[in-house]
């Protein structure tokens, strides 16, 4: 899932200086699962904002709504009527949802209510960790299904570096060395000899380096 983190209430309040009505718009997908921007978080933020505005002596109408997905136009259309009664939107969706909401409602200022962080998984309740950087050219087949681009701080394709100590990365004892994980995994699979294959120079053009990415599937287009 896309993992996001709540922004501080203070930062959101700063963004809303001078606003007289605001819709707090949540998203039912990834941000709900990582408890940063679902219905519950919408309720909490709206309640907190109301109390802040009251104390500031401002009369601000704070609305609450959570839709299925902010990254699909159909669901964004569901709030079209509601949008008319609000001057601005605080979106608790990921960066994708925030931008897509703004694209659908060009005259409404849309403010981010979360910091979108990474694509990751829940290690346990309340703990999420990054697993993929979306480089557009997956090499997990040769790295024992452990991604060095995501999990090595130097994204080394022929690691580990000299800083790997007791299975930990040189940047922190709390970070696992990706290459230690890769080697352990290759060993478990009986494929350790593959470690000696040199990983070729990577084509980063499918990554962020190649500019904004787009996928077109002609078989699916209407």
């Amino acid at each position, binding site marked *: 899932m896309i993992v996001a983190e709540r922004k501080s209430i203070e930062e959101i309040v700063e963004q809303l200086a001078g606003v007289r009505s605001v819709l707090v718009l949540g998203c039912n997908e990834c941000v709900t699962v990582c408890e940063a921007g679902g219905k519950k978080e919408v309720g909490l933020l709206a309640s907190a904002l109301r109390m802040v505005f009251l104390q500031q002596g401002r009369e601000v109408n704070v609305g609450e709504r959570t839709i299925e997905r902010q990254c699909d136009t159909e669901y964004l259309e569901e709030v079209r009527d509601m949008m008319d009664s609000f001057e601005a939107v605080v979106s608790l969706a990921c960066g994708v949802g925030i931008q897509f909401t703004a694209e659908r409602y060009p005259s409404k200022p849309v403010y981010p209510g979360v910091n979108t962080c990474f694509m990751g998984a829940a290690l346990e309740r309340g703990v999420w960790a990054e697993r993929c950087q979306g480089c557009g050219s997956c090499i997990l087949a040769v790295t024992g299904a452990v991604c060095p681009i995501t999990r090595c701080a130097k994204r080394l394709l022929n690691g580990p570096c000299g800083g790997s100590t007791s299975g930990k990365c040189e940047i922190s004892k709390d970070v696992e060395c990706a290459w230690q994980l890769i080697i352990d995994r290759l060993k478990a699979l009986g494929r350790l000899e593959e470690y000696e294959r040199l990983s070729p*120079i990577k084509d980063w053009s499918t990554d962020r380096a190649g500019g904004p990415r787009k996928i077109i599937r002609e078989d699916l287009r209407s």
Partner: protein
Amino acid sequence: MSPKTPSKLEKILRAGHLAVTSECGPPRGSDPSHIVHKAELIKNHVDAINITDNQTSVCRLCSLAACIRLKLMGLEPVLQMVVRDRNRIALQSDILGAASFDIHNLLCLSGDHQRFGDNAQGQNVFDLDSMQLLQTVRRMRDEGKFLGGDPIQRPPAMFVGAAANPFADPFEIRVPRLAKKVAAGAEFIQTQCIYNLDKFEKWMTLVRDRGLHEKVFILAGVTPFKSAGMARYMKTKVPGMDVPDEVVKRMAGTPKDKQAEEGLAICVESIQRLKEVKGVAGFHIMAIEWEERVPEIVERGGLYPRPAV
């Protein structure tokens, strides 16, 4: 095998001499006298001088400019290049820049993560890794081609090296990793500082078992301790460093005013023992901000005078 480049370091190694290199860290400012002074201290006792590339991610005068200073003094620099700060365009461009000043030695490194330095909030690049940089230089030199495939007019004539850390984890892949660097094109290796000689000898046995010592010149890295505090720091704070307890104890058990001498003694003893290890082709003496004592280490280590080639 006859030398493939005009590198003096390569000539010495191929002639079968034990080579001696040392290193200087560039200043945190633009005054060139600093690097000139350091080089003057050691120039008669070493074959080549490494210039570090923003080591520990602390911003300094650039390695290439400092190498040019050494060239202007008639000395033999080893240009260190980390892949942390430059993409493949900048790396190839800097290699050509170095070659234009006839800098003939290049050491390919990953580089410490920027979190250790004075710009921890910066972006890192890592477009290539150190092995891919080795491949890149070898392609530029041997095939006379850029990575993109276009021909290079006057390709760089560089003797290409890499680092190896026999003490990092996991130990079992440390020799396979060296084999990978050799396959990627490394011709010489400068190792991490060696304090755990037993472990290094074990590593060298595995290196010889695979015949790697015949494919690459291995320069054993040594660093003298200035104090017991430095020994403890290296043991506990520097990732991938292996300082045995007895070495720390030996330093700590020496009176404070004699610790520097004891550190030098340990360094000299290490060199004498490592000289006997088959496959060790020379020494890389990293006297961190202590260049003035390098000549003494070289002399007491029985590595002086340096051969003329």
